[in-house]
């Protein structure tokens, strides 16, 4: 039985089918989770994908955070379920206080779509458990608001608890401490700006994201076995 990954869909989300495609290529199954429904449908892992939930109006993720589905996602996360926020999904998880900090406009004040190098910093998380510390992955970013900020205490804590999971080798957007992705204290909730699903096929130029997606499926598998 393949694991079931829930992919959250807000109005304005646009990467849900890409995540679905990439997960299915690796043998996972996908269940779309509509923002208006207060349920996680018993899935084994959840992805909050990229896009422009509610048009990114007011502030990225600000409105999406109040969707009924996010209540369910919050509970799921607190129960230890793997939850990955990619790009806009990262922004939503920060707004929902499932992860610390916030994402601001890129330092260059321009949208950036390009492939960047990322260094894996820690592997005890739902998204990096199949990778090795020090691996350098080439994965696309695609955002206007990817400039990570948090207060000095939160940063000290992220560092002390080894919760910065990915750093930019060459910081493209001004992120504090070159942060490209972080996790919560338990490692089951992860947010990152780069799009692993966009680096999941050599035909498209890179398959460096596969190790991250496989980590997600591994986390989903252990969740599934745990609950059996």
């Amino acid at each position, binding site marked *: 039985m393949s694991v079931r990954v829930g992919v959250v869909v807000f*109005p*304005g989300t*646009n*990467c849900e*089918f*890409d995540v679905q*495609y*990439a997960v299915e290529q690796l043998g996972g199954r996908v269940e779309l989770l509509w923002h*208006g429904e207060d349920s996680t449908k018993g899935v084994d892992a959840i992805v909050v994908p990229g*896009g*422009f939930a*509610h*048009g*990114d*109006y007011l502030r990225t993720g600000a409105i999406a955070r109040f969707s009924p589905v996010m209540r369910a996602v919050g509970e799921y996360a607190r129960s230890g379920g793997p939850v990955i926020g990619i790009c806009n999904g990262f922004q939503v998880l920060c707004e929902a206080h499932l992860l610390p900090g916030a994402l601001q406009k890129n330092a260059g004040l*321009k*949208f*950036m*779509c*390009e492939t960047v190098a990322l260094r894996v910093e820690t592997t005890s998380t739902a998204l990096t458990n199949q990778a090795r510390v020090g691996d350098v992955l080439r994965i*696309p970013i*695609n955002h*206007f608001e990817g400039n990570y900020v948090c207060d000095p205490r939160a940063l000290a804590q992220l560092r002390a608890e080894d919760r910065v999971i990915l750093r930019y080798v060459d910081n493209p957007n001004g992120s504090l401490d070159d942060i490209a992705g972080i996790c919560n204290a338990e490692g089951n909730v992860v947010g990152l700006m780069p*799009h692993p*699903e*966009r680096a*999941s*096929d*050599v*035909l*498209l*130029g890179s398959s460096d994201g596969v190790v991250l997606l496989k980590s997600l499926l591994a986390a989903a598998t252990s969740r599934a076995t745990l609950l059996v």
Partner: protein
Amino acid sequence: MAESPNEQPLHRRLGMTDEELAAVVEELGREPNHLELAMYSVMWSEHCSYKSSRALLSRFPTEAPWVLVGPGEGAGVVDIGDGLAVAVRIESHNHPSAVEPYQGAATGVGGIIRDVFSMGARPIALMDPLRFGSLDDARTRYLFEGVVSGISGYGNSVGVPTVGGEVVFDDTYRGNPLVNVFCLGILPKERLVLARAEGPGNLAVLLGSATGRDGIGGASVLASASFEAGDEAKRPSVQVGDPFEEKRLIEACLELLDAKLAVGVQDLGAAGLSCAASETAAKAGAGMDVDVARMAKREPGMNAVEAMTSESQERMLAIVEPSNLEAVLALARRWEIRAAVVGRVTDTPRFRIFDGLFDAIGVPGENPAPPIGDDAPSVTSDAPAIADVPVESLGDGPLYHRPVARPASQDALQAADPGPQLRDKFPPGSDLSGELLALLATPTIADKTWVSRQYDHQLFLNTVAGPGADAAVLRVKGTAKALALSTDGKARFCRLDPRTGGRLVVLEAARNVACSGARPIALVNCLNFGNPEHPEVMWQFSEVVEGMSEACGALGIPVIGGNVSFYNASGDDDIHPTPVAGVIGLIDDLRRRPPTASLRDGDDIVVLGSIRPELGGSEWAAVVHGLDGGMPPAADLDRARAVHELVASLVRDALVAGVHDLSDGGLAVALAEMAIAGEVGIRVELNFDGCTPAEGCFAEPASVVVCAVNPHETAALCGAAAAAGVPARVVGVAAGDRLIAKGAFDVALADATHAWRDAIPALMSGATP
């Protein structure tokens, strides 16, 4: 201005001529009222009616067995097999972008996307052929920056990747930038719908944004008359795009069509509801009653003229059987979009507008807004129409055979061949290194990453080759196929000789597509010209259409759609004739990534085609040396076809490791671009019969392609070329860290890379209005 516009009669203020008014009076058998006149004026505008161009556009070849929908619908549609079809459309948003670059470009993107999903296709790719004045001008930088961020802001957010485009900088566009947008969508063949209001009793449901006063008369005011920067009176026509609304509209409309809840869908573009409602009815041979009271309005106190001609963005009209209405309204609620029954299909051949009738006679559907004017009396069921015209007449605008005259200056222009002067200045033995570096740094040739990195070009996981490639290549998931797309324009060539230029535009787009291994299956065009009331402009237009038609005919490419934009001028000067072609190619079996425009260390470099000393209109002559006369390169259509077929087959058979066509800047620039991409130098000899070294380097002959080849395959490649009757010549190898052409140039790869890569960012840093 001699007289104040208010002293003019109404029809002239609306941009109609006295003759056009007379035609309306004859059609109606009476004087039109204000609302009727307003509708005729927008529907009969140049932008909507193609009154100056229709007669000439019929020359395009439009047929092929795989064409499902040709010109005249929201988008052209071709069958690509496997039960799939693609819908394609290109449009200009030049004048709005000159007034407000961000919103002008953004709403251009929104409009073209609606055209594509109105056919039932999911929009999956955008391209943006752009033209501006030269970048040393502060206003041009402001326009360039604003247009690019508008495309980025809308396209990224609505969720359609921008996979390629063009940017050309030329003083001819200083006061009138060209913002063309191309969109491609994909659909299961059975979802194809045409915008037809079939079936009397069916309901017309307006979906999407509330109607505001923005863009009123946009079609007639902005797109159809001469236009000067800083014209305050026209500013209220600017509209603000809402990509989030459009994203929900796309999803709702596609779901609606999947569930077969609509018999037809039509976007509201130029001329707003007047156009959408009357056109869908006329095409179905039916009539339509519209009730403006049912329209959701963004502002209080809007009148019927405003409601019917507003060009507010993000609106669609769906034709729905009454039994499906509840399901349609439920679907709209799920996607959080407004839905209001604003019309009803009738069996009279009339287009009638009412204010409040539908509530009086109990037409179903919510009434989202109070009737126009808060104190409007309640309407009875026998209330008279506030407009009543024959439905066909709105779309049946005047047809003009405008005078055509070859410009008196054309002979002198063509006689001003830059060749002799440049041969004197750069005799054999001249060091051309500085010339090459200068060319690489001209903004038209320089790296466009500053632009393309602002665009999401990867969404949907289809983009096999994106910005930077000769053609964008998109895989078609679920099949072995891929699509190749290229948009190209060659205005300088068209100015020198519009017939040949028209051919060259088609050849370049088709050649780019061939470089990805595809065969061309369709073409769309966006024809950007000056004032059609100038006989010289109409001559250019007619010649360009002829040249494009000849090339399409010879290459077997059907034209499935297009767009005409007239009245592009800076002050009194018409822009250079600027046709842009978008060619769609099909790759039947994409097994691996197609070769890129780059070299690998150790590759042989082979030039396919004939290098001739053709400098007229070249970037080197015109931009670097300011010599912009002469004749454009020859456009031999048989040779083009042979080269395209050869190159496509070499790519398919994986005989080449890298491939790039010769275009702006000539052979030297093509080689330098490949070297920069491959991070390796070249050692070549560029001596060709009848050419000085400078001509060999910088001339821009058509139908030439550079290949990078594993030396083991060189003989096979040359053999294939000989069999195809295409000259092939090994000019050197990829090696080292310098670009060396014996007796011509010797440049460090790092310097070439720097010149090419940093030119636009350097010009744009500190860019301000």
